[in-house]
């Protein structure tokens, strides 16, 4: 591919990696604090998977930019300020309760599966191969989320109330999921268009939510900011995740 396309695709992949890494950070915060031991383990698996996906996307970006595959992913994770990140706001929101965390994952994972279905067909071979691997893992993530949805939505009055509250809080952040990603406009045939994923996502999500007796809020104030804008939570998250690395800039770990 030509250099201009390379740079565009790298930008796109870094945004995908940012989503995964920040979500992995949030999920990993549950490790040791989940409602039951089996879920400490299950949520850690999800976080391990997402972290692995972030590295894969960053490594592909490194190749496209002719950067060091070993060091570039760490550079992206540890030496960018909040304004340089391109993740959606949804993933950086604090964990809240278990309902919020499970539902956030579910909303995000359904989109990922849709996107990966397209990426598996990418004309750029290394991307198609990585997408095929990640796709398999995300299928499980959606299965996990879909199993939880009716159990919490229909379980007890309290669990239903918490789920509906979580949905009301999360819903305004979903329009941002369907903005074109950085670099995307120049990548036709290489990646699926993100706005094109919305219809399929909406059909699936609304049906699953309905079968769990959950309804998207009728009125919500969409937080549809560009990916260049981060939440305040992102500052706290980064000051924690980058503290050791930045205090020892020249160190190898």
């Amino acid at each position, binding site marked *: 591919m030509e250099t201009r396309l390379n740079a565009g695709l790298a930008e796109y992949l870094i945004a995908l990696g940012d989503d995964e890494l920040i979500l992995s950070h949030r999920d990993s915060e549950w490790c040791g604090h989940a409602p039951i031991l*089996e879920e400490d*383990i*299950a949520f850690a698996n999800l976080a391990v*998977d997402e972290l692995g996906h972030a590295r894969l996307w960053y490594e592909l970006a490194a190749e496209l930019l002719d950067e060091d595959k070993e060091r570039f992913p760490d550079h992206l994770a540890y030496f960018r300020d909040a304004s340089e990140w391109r993740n959606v706001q949804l993933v950086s929101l604090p964990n809240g309760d278990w309902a919020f965390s499970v539902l956030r994952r579910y909303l995000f994972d359904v989109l990922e599966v849709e996107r990966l279905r397209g990426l598996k067909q990418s004309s750029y071979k290394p991307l198609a191969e990585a997408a095929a691997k990640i796709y*398999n*893992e995300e299928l499980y993530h959606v299965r996990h989320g879909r*199993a939880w949805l009716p*159990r919490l939505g229909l379980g007890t009055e309290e669990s239903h109330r918490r789920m509906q509250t979580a949905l009301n809080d999360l819903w305004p952040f979903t329009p941002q999921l369907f903005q074109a990603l950085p670099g995307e406009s120049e990548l036709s045939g290489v990646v699926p268009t993100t706005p094109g994923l919305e219809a399929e996502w909406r059909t699936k999500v609304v049906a699953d939510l309905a079968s769990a007796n959950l309804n998207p809020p009728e009125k919500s104030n969409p937080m549809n900011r560009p990916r260049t804008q981060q939440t305040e939570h992102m500052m706290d998250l980064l000051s924690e995740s980058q503290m050791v690395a930045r205090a020892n800039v020249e160190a190898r770990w």
Partner: protein
Amino acid sequence: MSDTQWPRFMVFQQVVAGEPLVHNGTVHAPDLEMSLLNGRDVFLRRPAAHALWVVPVECILTKTIEELQDGSWLTGVKEAGGPMARYHVFGKLHHQGQLEQIGMVEAAGPEQALKTAMSEQQGRTVWVWWVFPVSSVLASDEDDIDSLFRFAESHDFKNQAYYPVITMMRQIRARGKR
């Protein structure tokens, strides 16, 4: 005190197609479907598997060689009429081993199933027997192998060989000081 830790399910794993299933342990889960997901998350953090089974603990009849040795249990088993069903038979064949799948029998109840299995397996030392109805098992689907079981294949960092510490120590000792 009410138990909020959910019921227990036995988890069995088949590493390669065609090989016997082997007992892994238990998971706590609210229901059978969730127990399969929990079984996957708890026991497959390292590859590999071809199939995973979960069975509610209370569906399993268990007897040890010691419980069976004086023969009184066996003579107490009554002939039963009623509908026949198929039962899986698992046994512990070695002191150090796990329980593994050793056969399947048809019987009118779990006790008859164990009795039949014992006569079929005569001459073999079985330290622990488990039988449970085929209908009590939830098994993973062949189509799910990729999404259920392959995630840990890339976890090379879980091998101790990933960490070259012996070489590192040798080099440092050879240098004599840091």
